[in-house]
């Protein structure tokens, strides 16, 4: 039984190349402290996120998922972050349907210059997931890989 | 015995009709009470037919009571609940029991009623039903068969003078006339000027038009109808009158307004009569008639 202090959440962070990843990079160069709980996955645009990616992340054992894109109105691909926002909302509803807390998933917007915002967001998400505890779906990574179908796309 | 409705329509007098709504159940006390209250005060009395898609004791049953009590009934037939076989069969039955007036309606849609999962039949529409009445009068049914004994009806339909847009509604009106409608009871009107404009079109045809009068009981009701009921427009001026009525006098104001409208329609010979719909307040209809003089 993991106590809250022992629990090291696994948080998958889908970051868009132009803004969120830039902010993550900057946070690194600025030597800002933030928890090492996140696993960053770079997307060309937050709009390329699919509901399926989010759900698979949870299925494979993520305790939390965040999707980070450009500030609204400044998306490099114009509307990508609006699509992302809608899909995150939809994925939240689906999480609720299977009995997972909606708060495990969140969308954030930031500009590439906002290193501190990135760090803060990671801290916030980590705190939140620690509060919620490990995902009820958690299982050893080895098993989950063998049960996963090879992607067809 | 009441005078046959067709006779009254053609007599040149200002015609007054009203309606009773049957109960949801077999307890007919109130229905019979309303029938007795109104049958001698009006030229003919409609019985509504599952109005607003709410299941009720049928119009045909109510009409039989009116007949028994010496009144002149108008059978309302909607196309929502019966297919062409049942509609024709009901016409035969009604005629055999001395009911000779019918109002042909399409009927409200199912979702607005209280049996929201029911099948809405709509085998015929109101225009086709009118044609069917006339066809049966010539001794044939819709299947092309000869009838052993025909029917004869004074048939009418409804029209919404304040529909927006009004042109499609006018096309429908003309089709109903062509299909055999002799009289029309309109949807509730509140604006006499608008109604006069409609009557300019209606007067081109040899049909009788009875203006629909719905009693206002409160400003809230007026606003509700403006928002929710298609084809009803209560002018601001009338809403104001309802609003500024003394506490507890709203109903009186409504009665006064209705009475005033009827008097104006009669005195200016704008149309051939009125159809008073008191929707649940049938007991108040005599007061409206009194207010109209």
């Amino acid at each position, binding site marked *: 039984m993991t106590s809250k202090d022992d629990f090291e959440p696994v948080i998958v962070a889908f970051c868009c190349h132009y803004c969120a990843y830039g902010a993550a990079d900057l946070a690194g160069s600025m030597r800002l402290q933030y928890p090492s709980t996140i696993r960053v996955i770079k997307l060309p645009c937050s709009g390329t996120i699919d509901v399926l990616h989010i759900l698979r992340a949870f299925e494979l054992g993520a305790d939390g998922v965040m999707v980070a894109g450009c500030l609204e109105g400044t998306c490099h691909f114009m509307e990508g972050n609006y699509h992302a926002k809608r899909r995150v909302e939809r994925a939240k509803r689906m999480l609720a349907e299977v009995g997972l807390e909606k708060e495990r998933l969140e969308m954030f917007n930031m500009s590439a210059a906002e290193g501190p915002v990135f760090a803060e967001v990671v801290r916030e998400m980590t705190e939140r997931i620690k509060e919620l505890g490990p995902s009820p779906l958690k299982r050893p990574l080895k098993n989950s890989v063998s049960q996963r179908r090879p992607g067809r796309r | 015995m009441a005078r046959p409705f067709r006779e009254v329509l053609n007599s040149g007098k200002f015609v007054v009709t009203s309606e009773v709504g049957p109960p949801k159940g077999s307890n007919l006390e109130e229905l019979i009470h309303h029938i007795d209250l109104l049958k001698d005060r009006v030229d003919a009395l409609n019985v509504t037919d599952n109005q607003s898609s709410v299941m009720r004791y049928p119009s045909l049953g109510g009409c039989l009571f009116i007949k028994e009590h010496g009144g002149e009934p108008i059978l309302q037939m909607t196309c929502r609940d019966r297919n062409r076989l049942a509609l024709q069969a009901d016409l035969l039955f009604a005629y055999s029991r001395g009911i000779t007036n019918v109002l042909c309606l399409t009927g409200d849609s199912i979702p*607005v009623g209280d049996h929201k999962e029911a099948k809405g039949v709509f085998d015929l529409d109101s225009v086709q039903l009118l044609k069917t009445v006339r066809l049966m009068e010539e001794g044939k049914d819709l299947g092309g068969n000869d009838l052993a004994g025909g029917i004869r009806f004074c048939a009418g339909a409804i029209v919404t003078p304040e529909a927006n847009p009004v042109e499609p509604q006018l096309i429908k009106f003309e089709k109903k006339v062509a299909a055999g409608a002799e009289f029309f009871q309109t949807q509730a009107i509140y604006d006499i000027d608008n109604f006069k404009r409609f009557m300019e079109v209606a007067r081109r045809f040899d049909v009788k038009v009875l203006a629909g009068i719905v009693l206002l009981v409160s400003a809230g009701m007026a606003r509700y109808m403006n928002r929710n009921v298609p084809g009803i427009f209560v002018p601001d001026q009338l809403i104001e009158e309802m609003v500024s009525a003394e506490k507890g006098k709203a109903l009186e104001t409504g009665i006064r307004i209705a009475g005033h409208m009827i008097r104006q329609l009669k005195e200016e010979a704008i149309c051939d009569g009125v159809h008073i719909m008191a929707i649940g307040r049938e007991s108040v209809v005599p007061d409206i008639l009194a207010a109209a003089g």
Partner: protein
Amino acid sequence: MIIGKQKPLEEIREMLEGYKRVLILGCGTCVTVCLAGGEKEVAILATLLRMSEKMAGGDKTFSEHTIQRQCDNEFLDELEEKVKDVDAVLSLACGAGVGLVAERFPDLPVLPGLNTTFIGIPQERGVFTERCLSCGDCILDETGGICPVARCTKGLLNGPCGGTNNGKCEVDPEKDCAWTLIYQRLERQGKLERMRAYRPPRNFQAVVRPGKVVAE
């Protein structure tokens, strides 16, 4: 094309009670376009079902496959292999597809994951609207291409009814009154006499159900 909508997850889970190895079968034609039962939707549903199965402590397994069309036997051939170790198929095709797969594998429960709703078109992104009721007696030449049978809630041939409100239907203020649309279209084309013409009662037996067509 045929438009369908996925059943709620709860309803699907109830249907799957008692089965252990379920194949979720998608269809690559109509239901892919209306975002209800294509390959993507199969993947999403499979993931959701696995997740909720895990939450419930169950041991159902779900396999995924999508074929070009479930309503055509030639595309069902490849399923012979896929259904070998499966005790139920959850088909995301329209009713025709579900039925044909069920006919092809009569010993296997084939369950519908969608509610098939109507023949329609994509009106705008993500929004599909009904356009045809397959009445078997098309009168679109008389109504300017707008079908009153499918798009008028009462299916009136001599419309509109008294419930039309500012060009919208009494049943749903977001839905257009088909007869108002027909009026506007015919007026635009100078063909209003088609609306003035009396239309006799519809032949409801133009297609005697269940329908059958033999191509010569």
